[in-house]
């Protein structure tokens, strides 16, 4: 009963248009007040959020990718990949996915990945006669790689909430990320071969290939430095973000000379703005989280799940359905923040690895990003391509199936995620 009242109140606040952060915060504060708990918990939760060293990685990764973005790196990247694989069957589609994968390795966000690659790849693919719906779906889904392949803002937040190692989470995202890229590529080639007609791209000359590659090389090197640095222990994720920011400045300001002062200032303000809204949501969710913990709601749900769902498979099926439904209307971060404290105890009781569970959650959050009515990547592709939400959503359907297939693979073979961090 309490749970239903809380859910109704939450929906009412959100639908009236109260920003997610304040809706969660106000609801949590009201619950604290009604339950006779101290409202001091609200400012304490806000301070505690801003005081998390790992969360400092959020603005810095944003700065890095925004600087690269303003420096036109997305265009260079796509041009280089296209020069190599553009003439394959479905070559532009393959180039799009690979570009999404590489950009994902320098950006922590799905929306930025979808927007960057979408802006350059969508017009190109459509002019070559690719099926529109396929293009929309491909870009919306390809963008979600941004949060599975490290760096990843949702993984940082999962690590912050659960006190698990962010480095391990980052490493664990690589395997499933590559699996997803492989599945997307396979589907693109098959779909191009059998389901649609398009004008093939002429192979590009070798000198042209090398020129395009050279221009894109710095950002690929940057991605490698960041991943390698984290993996080798040279720096923590937060420090990696700082290094990434400095190197991005160097690449766009000194090597490519594509960054102006105005663009730099734009990148700084955009990063600040996103950081403020993300950290406030985390703080709001923390207040809400304390309130539901004191009402013993996560504890009750966890007990309920372990009473009624007897097997690990059963748990994953139930949780996946809940997350998919929730993902229809919830935005990605709130999902991680609200559901992790509720679900993780039940998962740990069934001996799931907490790192594995984080990756599993992030793949389902990726699904949420491409399911209507609330899916940020749908909105991005819709605005980039000037199309309807319905058409973009229908296009994502086959990719949604591939993502659920990856979840199944991950369940059957947990090492898909855990091999790189713990066994390599």
């Amino acid at each position, binding site marked *: 009963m309490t749970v239903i009242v809380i859910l109704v109140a939450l929906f009412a606040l959100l639908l009236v248009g109260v920003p997610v952060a304040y809706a969660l915060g106000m609801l949590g504060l009201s619950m604290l007040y009604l339950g006779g*708990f*101290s409202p*001091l*918990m609200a400012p*304490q939760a806000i301070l*505690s959020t801003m005081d998390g*060293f790992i969360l400092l990685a959020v603005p810095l990764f944003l700065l890095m990718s925004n600087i690269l973005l303003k420096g036109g790196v997305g265009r260079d990247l796509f041009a280089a990949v296209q020069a190599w694989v553009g003439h394959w069957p479905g070559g532009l589609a393959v180039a799009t996915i690979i570009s999404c994968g590489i950009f994902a390795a320098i950006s922590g966000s799905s929306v930025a990945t979808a927007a960057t690659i979408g802006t350059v790849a969508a017009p190109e693919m459509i002019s070559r006669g690719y099926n529109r719906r396929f293009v929309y779906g491909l870009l919306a889904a390809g963008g979600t790689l941004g949060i599975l392949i490290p760096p990843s803002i949702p993984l940082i937040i999962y*690590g912050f909430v659960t*006190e*698990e*190692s*962010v*480095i*391990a989470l980052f490493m664990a995202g690589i395997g499933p990320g590559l699996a997803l890229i492989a599945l997307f590529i396979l589907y693109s080639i098959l779909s191009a071969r059998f389901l649609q007609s398009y004008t093939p791209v002429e192979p590009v000359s070798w000198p042209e290939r090398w020129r395009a590659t050279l221009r894109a090389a710095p950002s690929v090197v940057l991605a490698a430095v960041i991943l390698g640095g984290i*993996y*080798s*222990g*040279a*720096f*923590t994720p937060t420090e990696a973000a700082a290094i990434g920011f400095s190197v991005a400045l160097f690449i766009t300001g000194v090597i490519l000379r594509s960054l102006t002062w105005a663009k730099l200032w734009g990148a700084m303000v955009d990063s600040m703005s996103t950081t403020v809204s993300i950290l406030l949501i985390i703080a709001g969710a923390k207040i809400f989280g*304390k309130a539901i*913990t*004191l009402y*013993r709601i996560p504890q009750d749900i966890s007990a309920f799940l372990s009473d009624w769902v007897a097997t690990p498979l059963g748990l994953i099926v139930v949780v996946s359905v809940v997350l998919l439904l929730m993902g229809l209307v919830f935005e990605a971060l709130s999902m991680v923040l609200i559901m992790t*404290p509720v679900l993780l105890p039940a998962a740990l009781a069934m001996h799931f690895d907490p790192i594995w569970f984080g990756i599993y959650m992030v793949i389902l959050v990726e699904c949420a990003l491409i399911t209507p009515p609330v899916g940020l990547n749908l909105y991005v592709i819709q605005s980039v391509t000037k199309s309807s939400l319905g058409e973009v959503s229908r296009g994502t359907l086959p990719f949604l199936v591939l993502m659920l297939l990856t979840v199944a693979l991950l369940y059957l073979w947990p090492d898909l995620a855990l091999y790189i*961090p713990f066994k390599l």
Partner: protein
Amino acid sequence: AETTMRISLQLPMKSHLGQNLKMFKDEVEATSNGDIAVEIYDSAQLYKDKEVPQAVGSGAIEAGVASLTRFVGDVPMVDIFYQPFLFDSEEKVRKAVAPGSPVRGPIDEAIQGTGSTVLWWQAYGGAIMLSNGGPISSPEAMQGKKVRVFGKTLGDFTTAAGGAPTIISGSEQYLAYQRGTVDIGMTGVSGVQSRSLWEVMDTITVTNHADIEFIVVVNTDWWNALPQAHKDIIAAAARNAENSVRDEMSAIEGRAYAAAKENGMTIYTPTADELAQWQAVSQPVYDAFLEKTGDAGKAMLEAARGF
């Protein structure tokens, strides 16, 4: 229940501190016939360790467990337990933590001034050093090495011994050792067992250079408003919990050392000569302590040296 006592804990229930709280809860709930309900919020569901002093002192929650050194911002004297090699045997530790002792007495009293009342102390064991490819037998072995520390005083000690301190959280410890972000680690030996650190480090040097204590504090206003009967029940259970964990501590550490050995770790105990070298480099840490704590700290230190 007439009274609800919520306790915030950073560690999971399965840790020995969690089990100790569970014992307290069971006793209180049984002897009060359910008049007092104890709710434990483990794994930092409500507060992280470092937030506990403020949360309990302000009355945002009734009770919490925090590492003693978390109170250093209010009570600089708590750092006596991190003065290198001051309490390097169980006997000395027991004398220091006895209720009302010249070391614990002034600390409990000073914490009272922060709005919290100390219910009981939970033993956590001594700090040891972890390394790869040989023990950290003397300060020479620490020269120029990067060292994982937890807290400022251990950092100062590391600097005094010629190492470079880096603060790394408990959760990032494993990978920091595996990837070589740091060369040497400081932790309690039970942490070696709970985090399987033998997979990434091969040597323990039993320095016992600091004594790690946790304390369970309650909000003073809440405590004073309790009926006397409830206070008595809680105080009695707290005393039992304190004695139990103190008595078990050497067995807990013994099991952790055995597990470490079983998993291939070398366990090295420094010789008297090596310990003297360690103590010789530690003087700046003591000087800083005296400078911060004045006469009260001086009296405490003298008492401790007499144990």
